[in-house]
């Protein structure tokens, strides 16, 4: 064994996905131990929540997992609705499902692109992913006026109905994206270098995954058939027919492939939801000032995993305590275990396959 040395990877490093700082102890190119240091993006969102009314906090949830703002909005609004027993118009429920699934698609697209980037496929898959993502971002821009922080879902409904013609745009996108998925498979999934780099790297077994409370695509890639949308359906997910794709080995390639499969399933859900969407007004007539008491824990299936909101209310205008259980936080927790003994190139590959967003890890 040679002389050990420490490499400080991050907070500014091309592949740490934001401001993550990893302290790697290495023997040559082999990573012996990895120590993540968090907090470079800490904004204390939970304290902010205690100082905002329920409605005012919605824009802040956009800043958690900024690649999936819709899903965060949805998770928070569902938690408040569960706490205060607010009914949601049926059209709003369907639109929420469509928005959440579209957001899942584009979040996974970014994950695919950045993972390929981490494996050294210079920018091209990333740009293809962003090119496809742009179509949905433009649509969201038209629907709610934001391209990244959507702030679209309100407690008890939505901020407004979708403009005319949205249905056609989504249908066109589904057709386009299905064609594109084939291209991704040709460009990446079955490429010999890609396979060699990501197969059997960073294997996460079922027991370890559950013990680390890993959720979302990472858990499913380890072979656990688990999806909150199926197990504890919220909104109208129980009305749709979709599969839960699972991996077998739980390695980086499985996590990547699973995202492609999930995009396909999301497209299926969107297709069904568009067909069944009822008429009506999705904007609820509820007041914007709420008073609630009690406590609730609501978890939803975010693109990265299970997003949980633990709300405690004391009858005031503002939540007494709002704990955000973010999926990336728990998923990143498994990283030190996964990269132990790997090459530094593989450590980067594993980190990329975790698909983390620092916005919701540091909060």
């Amino acid at each position, binding site marked *: 064994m040679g002389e050990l*040395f420490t490499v400080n990877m991050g907070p500014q490093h091309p*592949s740490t996905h934001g401001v993550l700082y990893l302290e790697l102890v290495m023997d040559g190119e082999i990573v012996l131990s990895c120590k993540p240091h968090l907090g470079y993006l800490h904004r204390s969102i939970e304290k902010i929540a205690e100082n905002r009314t329920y409605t005012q906090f919605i824009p802040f949830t956009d800043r958690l997992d900024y690649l999936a703002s819709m899903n965060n909005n949805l998770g928070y609004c569902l938690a408040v609705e569960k706490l205060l027993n607010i009914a949601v118009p049926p059209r709003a429920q369907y639109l929420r499902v469509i928005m959440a699934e579209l957001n899942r698609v584009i979040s996974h697209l970014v994950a695919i692109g950045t993972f390929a980037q981490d494996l050294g496929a210079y920018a*091209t898959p990333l*740009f293809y992913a962003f090119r496809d993502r742009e179509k949905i971002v433009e649509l969201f821009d038209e629907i709610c006026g934001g391209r990244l922080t959507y702030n679209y879902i309100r407690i008890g409904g939505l901020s407004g109905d979708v403009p005319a013609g949205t249905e056609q745009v989504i249908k066109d996108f589904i057709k386009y994206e299905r064609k594109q998925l084939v291209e991704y498979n040709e460009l990446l999934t079955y490429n010999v270098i*890609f396979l060699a780099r990501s197969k059997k790297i960073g294997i996460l077994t079922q027991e370890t995954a559950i013990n680390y409370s890993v959720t979302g695509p990472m858990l499913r890639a380890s072979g656990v058939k688990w999806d909150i949308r199926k197990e504890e359906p919220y909104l109208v997910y129980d009305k749709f027919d979709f599969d839960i794709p699972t991996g077998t080995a739980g390695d980086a390639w499985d996590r990547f492939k699973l995202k492609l499969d999930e995009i396909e399933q999301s497209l299926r859900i969107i297709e069904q939801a568009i067909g069944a969407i009822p008429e009506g007004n999705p904007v609820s007539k509820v007041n914007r000032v709420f008073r609630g008491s009690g406590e609730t824990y609501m978890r939803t299936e975010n693109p990265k995993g299970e997003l949980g909101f633990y709300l405690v209310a004391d009858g005031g205008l503002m939540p007494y305590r709002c704990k955000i259980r973010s999926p990336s936080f728990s998923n990143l927790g498994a990283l030190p275990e996964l990269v132990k003994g790997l*090459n530094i190139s593989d450590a980067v590959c594993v980190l990329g396959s975790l698909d983390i967003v620092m916005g919701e890890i540091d909060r």
Partner: protein
Amino acid sequence: MMTMVLKGLSALGFIAVSAMFLIWLERKVSAWIQNRLGPMMTGFQGTLQPIADTIKLLLKEDIVPKGVDFLSWWLAPFFVTVPVVMAFLVIPFSSKWIVLDLNVGVLYICSVTSLCVLGIFMAGWGSNNKYSLLGGMRSAAQIISYEVPLLLSVLLVVMQAGTLSMQGIIHAQAHGWFILKPQLALAFLIYFISATAEVNRVPFDIPEAESELVAGYHTEYSGMKFAMFFVAEYTNMFIISAIAATLFLGGWQGPWLPGVVWFLIKAYGLIFVLMWMRWTLPRVRMDQMMSFAWKVLTPIALLNLLVGGWFMLK
């Protein structure tokens, strides 16, 4: 003597212009592949972009990081650039345009271009940066191991042509390019792959490995020193393509057009393939790359040499 100096100077001028053109081409090719526009603001389609870049790099402060091994850190860019310039001595642009037609041209060019590794390793060692050190180490291992299949494949060409002189090899292809012969086509493939590794291009860009090692061996360089690495990288690319064009694609030979045009078309065509590969493929891992060199390329090259030699004897 005077003509030699003039020829040398024009080779230097060509290096500068070619590197600039290649930088522009790389940006444009990447943009086309990625459905982007690429540089547009400077000149028509951003053609003047490399000049703007050069001015920027010239005006940049030359930062000397704390704790560098000054001599090796300072000398490294020169050690990378000088062999590249030296290699131009024997590149035959046309039947007349060659600085010096050495009778050991192929041997000379192969030995000179492999000197680059020294500069890269010095840069990696001297920078006093862990990423640079890892990059330099990787580079040394990579370039030395890929030298073997590269030379084995060149050897077959030399056997076929019966000479080491670059012009002589081109003349030997007067009745059909070497790439059209099956055993030499395989040699071309082996040459091309190992040459890609030799100049650290994707999928073998392990010494730079942006997503792992930030920028590898030139992490700590800025300003003109960085520009020298940059120029050396792109000129190296031109050199390996030029050698491939000379050894396998008939060099400057071709109908209708003047020889130099044919030569440049062939060389830049191969460079385009290199760029195309760069913007498509992921990077291989260090150990995979080494095992590919020793377990796949070298045995095939050896076998190819044997079979090719047997055919020639018959």
